[in-house]
């Protein structure tokens, strides 16, 4: 319930217009589970996911960067941004961002696997 309220609040902050359409169709990379420690981060993450789901990838990336300014060492945010770049077709950045995520991932095997998948896909996807 509280999460929905949050999403509603954040959505209220931003009625958005999206520049150029994008998002080439790519097979989805598994999503890492959302985190709950910081409500600000959780809200931004959800908002970015909603944007990404709706194909508003520029907006999603901007929101993730906003979250990264608050928690620059949060590996999930870096992973999420890598996924967005991959969908935008920016393979080189996707791989770099996934590597950045790995550098903060510690022993989170699941997240490391997700990052590895991005790096692999960035290498093979046209």
């Amino acid at each position, binding site marked *: 319930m*509280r999460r929905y*309220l*949050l999403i509603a*609040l*954040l959505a*209220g*902050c*931003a*009625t*958005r*217009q999206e*520049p150029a359409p994008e998002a080439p169709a790519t097979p989805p990379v598994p999503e890492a589970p959302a985190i709950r420690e*910081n*409500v*600000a981060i*959780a*809200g*931004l993450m959800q908002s970015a996911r909603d944007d990404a789901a709706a194909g508003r990838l*520029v*907006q999603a*990336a*901007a*929101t993730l*960067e*906003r979250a*990264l*300014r*608050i928690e*620059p*060492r949060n590996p999930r945010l870096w992973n999420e*941004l890598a996924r967005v770049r991959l969908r935008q077709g920016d393979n080189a*950045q996707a791989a*770099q*961002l996934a*590597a*950045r995520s790995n*550098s*903060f991932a*510690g*022993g*989170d095997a699941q997240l490391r696997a997700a990052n590895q998948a991005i790096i692999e896909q960035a290498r093979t996807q046209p």
Partner: protein
Amino acid sequence: MARRRRILRYFRYALLAGVAVFLAFALYLDLRVTGEFEGRRFSLPARIYARPIELHAGLRIRQADVEEELRLVGYQQGERETPGWFLSQKNQVELVTRPFTFWDGPQPARRVKVEFDAGSVTSVTDAEGKQVALARLEPLHVGGIYPAGNEDRLLVRLPEVPRHLVQELVAIEDRNFFSHHGFDPRALARAAFRSVTGRTEGGSTITQQLVKNFFLTPERTLKRKFTELVMAVLLEIHYGKEEILETYLNEIYLGQDRDRAIHGVGLAAQFYFGKEVQHLSAAESALLVAMVKGPAVYDPRRHAARALERRNLVLHEAKEQGFLTTEQYSVARSAPLGVVPKPAMGTSPYPGFVQLVVRQLRRDYDEKDLRSEGLRIFTALDPRVQNAAEHALANRLAQYDKDKRFGPPGIEGAVVVADPQSGEVQALVAGRDPRYQGFNRAVDAARPVGSLLKPVVYLTALQEPAKYTLVTPIDDGPFVWKSRGAPDWEPQNYDKKFHGIVPLRTALAQSYNAATARLGTDIGVDKVLDNVRRLGIERPLRPFASTLLGAVELSPLEVAQMYQTMANGGFKTPLRAIREVTTQEGRPLARYALRVEQAIAPEPAYLITAAMQGVVREGTGQALKTMLPPELGIAGKTGTTDEQRDAWFAGFTGDRLAVVWVGYDDNRAAKLSGSASALPVWGDIMAALPSEPLSLAKPDNIENVLIDPQSGLRADGSCPGALELPFASGSAPAGRAPCASELGVTVQEVKQKAKSWLERLFGR
């Protein structure tokens, strides 16, 4: 008779010719009036904004800093809970945000309560007491990119302008405005009469004033007066009173803020009252109207009495003409001027930062568009950081001047502060006078960097863990470099001594030249320079051995880029001043996205950071220990060039990177070392700001080993002064220090093994 007729005929021809000439002239003017008035769009400067504060529980920010920013943005304390209001109490601030269009869309007004404790936000709640995840405040407007004449304005539509403002304007400037046809013979006659009696009065209608400002030069000749009159009539033929009035209200010159010209009632309302024009009272409007006659003469900040007198005259005229009731008049008349104190800003209070913004924008936009299209530019500038950097630099430089008594010109300096993770430039100080819009030392001054380059030499060594670790002994004995066609190079140490065999980390911490030159030439100058490029330096460097000791000229901004990559675990993130650009209406045009590139492997990046922490813990940067808490774990490097012409300090905490340069513009010997002059500026900046401790994410292939500093071998708990140092896996010394336990495995090691095993099992 015939002669008379002939004269009459000539007269008629002359008259016809005169009329024809006049018609042609009128037609020409008509074309100009319609063409230019129609096509005329006000040139609107690009508006530059600082980063917005994003309030959320856990944010490290002092209550006083939030209040200060609210004040600067124009929020006022008071009774009414309307947008732009705030109320400061013990450990909490309540406020109502103003609606603002950000890059990602408009954000409506919102009431929030923010609670603080010990320099952090503890909670953010809304009017109903519900938790607010994130409250983004309106960003501070920090300058613009201006059209010719530095004209600044905020366009307003006529319906936004209070009725009493228009009435007061008409009452004092042009009482027959709504009935005349561009010029007013009665007003002219009155003006002529008064000028005879010694009192000057304009007599120009609002239409004529607009024509004068719009189309004509300020000379005062009869011909120009005539042209003005004809054009005013033509303007009235083509356009309605409301269009003319609206244009006038946006055009009119109403004051000067240093080099910035304040035009239009929209901007003037902000400039004098900190309000939007629609909220101006009758008295406030009257003051703006009073200034139309001469913004300098009736400047309410400089000539309050004169301004008050004319304001009251405006109010009186408005009452006389029935626009104000006697009661409204007496209320307005007794109101104070109500002008808010406003620090002079000019085109920007932060010209150095704006220069960087313009430079980055020029790659993507026409200069003309930047100066006329009213673009909105959202930057990373953090006013708190900027102010801390300006103060630290100015105060310390003043002190050095006093101590040295070199006389003018004084010693100079420059500062760049950035976020190492995002690469965002938070502050940039171009010289000791931060308001001076000239030479930008932070961006354009290329100065020898001296020992600032040493970390790259050591980084290059640490990329070969089989050969070099933090404790590898290296030789700081006399060193001679011979190369054909050049004189021998024999670098000396700062203390004129040689120190024999020292551990690698000590050679960096103490900034030994001979050891560094030997190490760098052993690894290869090319390899070192290759790393300098990887770290983000784009200008070509000479492949000489002396380059190793900093015979390289770089700007403070370039140095910041180089250190950013090291501070960010080897990930280069191009330094950026700008986040987003939108059109005037808020339509997004461009984003300057965060990009990362792994330039250096995580392990050597981690090791060099640890070595630079040693500089502050036990080396040439030790003076910082008295200025900042040791828990910050600061990593940094001092730099001093020949004869102490340039003094540097570059370093970083967990979330802030700063580079400070100090020296003379004319390259005189400053007789100040990096640690004695640049470092204290750096320390003052960091001491004024909250910082996260530096703790890099430890790469997988790094292990921490307890080392006995005496022998450089493995230590245990019984070794006095043992240090835990990082090593690339398998590169730590195998031997045990004499002080360590005789047993094969020390207690310490068992503990460490267990700890790392647990870490692997459960993550960190």
